[in-house]
């Protein structure tokens, strides 16, 4: 049951009706039942895995909080981390390592392979779960007494399968001090829902056709123009796909009285790679910073250790996205760029850039660097990545793949992004005159109807992670 299907909207409508008509004490049970129903609509058997991880992490956190013996606390933490990382490692990385080992021993790549289906959302809910247990271990979070509350935190359907990765204190703050959403929040939520749907179906799915067509067989359309246009199309696709999903998740949460953190802040307007990672998949960046980069030492032990930590964080962040060397290279590429920026700009690299005359140039360079990185992210294998990069820089000519109307659409979205950056039009529309709100929402829905509608919904890219 994908977010971009009529079935999902029917499901959401039923959940909202049940949620708001039920007595308050029933509501979390309704949300939990709805979340499990939603999860089971994909592959039902994986509910057992979700339940098992929920039980392990709930118990581990309780154990950590109850005992004062350091070894015992650490043992409980290790059990929890091992369970999460073990299952994540098995389901997501077993075949990757097996094929590499097979390669080392000169055996066929599938010599040790198993037929494994990746449980939906495992990368997200394990990270969310681990953050909770680690926070309890660090005494930054009280353990949750009610297992139903904890289960809801892990399984809450708007963010279960592709984030954003919500911190326990954010979620339980909303759950324990739940208040009926204000009319402003309902309007923001609805607008986000429609905006997310339009981003996914009108923009991402259209640009996906260009990127998929090119990357399916990269040798078919030689030259730098098709290569760049396909890579840019993919860059647009993945941004609107993922941020569209996130907008819908945040919008739904608002309708239910929950507040998720912002996950994207116009990343393609970033003035540097550091700035990009402050704007792209923010909840993951924050997770990696708090649970990997800072524990590794962050920037506290000199430049070389900082670069090492950046590299390690980004390499693992890359691997988190998928089990292939391409993702490792993609992570390493970003780690190297972050390290370079750190090397040349020092701590200033983390300061937000000012909007000066140079800003557009910085943004264009950053955009270009990010696009180069997407080659590794999207290409089927390392060989294809190198081939595409060669085309992008050394093979002139070729035909433009993005049709004129999609270029116009991309420019319009760029202008809207700049406007949002400077003027916060989203908020102005949400709380502005009724006619403007109605017209914008109606236009978004009309665009979905006219451009985005398909009989078979296109899955979200990040569902595979």
């Amino acid at each position, binding site marked *: 049951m994908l977010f971009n299907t009529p079935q999902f909207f029917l499901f959401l409508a039923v959940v909202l009706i049940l949620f708001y008509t039920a007595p308050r004490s029933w509501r979390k049970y309704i949300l939990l039942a709805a979340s499990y129903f939603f999860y089971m609509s994909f592959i039902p058997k994986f509910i057992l895995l979700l339940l098992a991880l929920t039980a392990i992490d709930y118990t581990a956190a309780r154990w950590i909080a109850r005992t004062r013996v350091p070894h015992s606390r650490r043992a409980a933490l290790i059990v929890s981390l091992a369970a999460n990382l073990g299952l994540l490692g098995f389901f997501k990385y077993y075949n990757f390592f097996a094929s590499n080992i097979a390669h080392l021993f000169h055996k066929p790549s599938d010599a040790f392979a198993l037929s494994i289906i990746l449980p939906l959302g495992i990368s997200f809910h394990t990270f969310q779960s681990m953050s909770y247990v680690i926070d309890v271990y660090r005494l930054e979070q009280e353990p949750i007494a009610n297992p139903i509350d904890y289960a809801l935190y892990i399984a809450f359907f708007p963010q279960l399968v592709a984030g954003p990765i919500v911190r326990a204190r954010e979620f339980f703050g909303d759950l324990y001090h739940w208040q009926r959403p204000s009319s402003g929040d309902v309007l923001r939520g609805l607008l986000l829902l429609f905006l997310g749907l339009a981003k996914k179906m009108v923009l991402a799915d259209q640009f996906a056709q260009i990127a998929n067509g090119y990357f399916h067989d990269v040798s078919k359309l030689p030259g730098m123009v098709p290569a760049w246009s396909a890579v840019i199309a993919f860059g647009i696709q993945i941004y609107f796909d993922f941020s569209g999903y996130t907008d819908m998740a945040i919008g739904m949460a608002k309708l239910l009285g929950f507040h998720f953190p912002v996950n994207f802040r116009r990343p393609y307007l970033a003035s540097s790679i550091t700035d990009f990672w402050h704007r792209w998949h923010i909840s993951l960046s924050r997770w990696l910073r708090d649970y990997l980069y800072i524990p590794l030492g962050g920037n506290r032990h000199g430049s070389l250790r900082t670069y090492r930590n950046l590299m390690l964080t980004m390499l693992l962040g890359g691997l988190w996205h998928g089990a292939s060397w391409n993702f490792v290279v993609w992570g390493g590429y970003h780690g190297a760029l972050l390290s370079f920026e750190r090397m040349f700009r020092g701590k200033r690299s983390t300061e937000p850039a000012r909007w000066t005359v140079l800003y557009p140039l910085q943004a264009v360079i950053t955009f270009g660097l990010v696009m180069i990185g997407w080659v590794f992210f999207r290409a089927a294998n390392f060989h294809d990545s190198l081939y595409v990069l060669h085309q992008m820089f050394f093979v002139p000519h070729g035909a433009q793949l993005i*049709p004129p109307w999609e270029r116009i659409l991309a420019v319009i979205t760029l202008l809207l992004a700049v406007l949002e950056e400077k003027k916060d039009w989203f908020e102005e529309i949400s709380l502005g005159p009724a006619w403007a709100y*109605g017209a914008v929402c109606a236009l978004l829905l009309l665009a979905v*109807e006219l*451009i985005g509608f398909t009989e078979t919904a296109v899955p979200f890219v990040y569902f595979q992670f």
Partner: protein
Amino acid sequence: MWPRILAIIAFFAAFEGILFHTDLYSSIIEPDSTTGYMEIQLRNEIRRTKLDHNQVLAVGHSRMALLPRVVNEDKPGSGYTFATIWLGGTTPRVWYYALRAVDPNARNYAAIVIPSDDYNELDFDDYQSERERDLHYLIARLGLRDLGEFPWTFQDKTLQWQVVRGMILKGTIYKRDFLDFLEHPAARIAKAHYYASDSAGWHYDYGGASENLTGLEIDWLHKTIRFPDRIPASTRRDVEDELFSKLPPDQGRQTAYLRYWYGRIIDYYRGTGTKLIFLRVPRAPISPPDAPPKLNSAVRQIASQPNVIVLDERLFNQLEHPDLFWDGWHLNHDGMVQFSRILAAEVRRVLGPPKP
């Protein structure tokens, strides 16, 4: 909050209504698409000057072989003015809505000519009531008032839902056309205007295919065809598929479908002066053996109704000759000319002399 939510509904309904429930978008639809071709035909017929009531309109599919120009320019003529709106692949459900569009008051025509492939109306695999493309033919002509009938004439529940959704949210049906429009908007608008102004003449001048199947022999008993050497392999395959396709057991589905839609057309013209003339189109390049008549077929049952004239099913048997066909189902130019003249004479015979 509620004024804003109502504003969403109001604006969406307004956008949808203005764009797709008026002529705005359908006037620039791709003329060579299913919907576009249908619209061109309907608009041309609506615009056509009708000087008197002696107008005869032939509706139908690709086997409706009437060439209006031939019979309208014959000297001496029949006294009736012939016109046609035909589109390959259409069936009586589409014709009913097409007639409603071109003749909103049911008084434009002296007669409507309606083709039948076979008065025995045998079932075949492509069940006509389940043709989703009928929605595409008619999307520009279907309004919200048709929600009570049109979707429910499909049997399949999923299809019914798709049709309801398509009729309300017409943009979902126009989607492919709209994306195509976005690729070259100026060229599309120019093409649509060009077709709107000139296509009536092209259609009126259309003369049919010049090829023929002379030399073809068919053994109906053993279901074999001997083709003359010059016939290309693709045509051979088409002819074999057309003439020897395996039919499922006849369960009366096709008859039930035709009974409903012939009935709707008859009801539409009931009490008007318009006659409904049914004919059987030439069936094949060589006459197939006659099957025993299915007495409860829709066309045979409606024959007794007032204003309905069912022509002799053998009327066009003389045209079932390889010289007059260009494939297994369709008459060529010579066949169409002969068909048109026979039809005009027969219409004149059954209607009597034209009214002054």
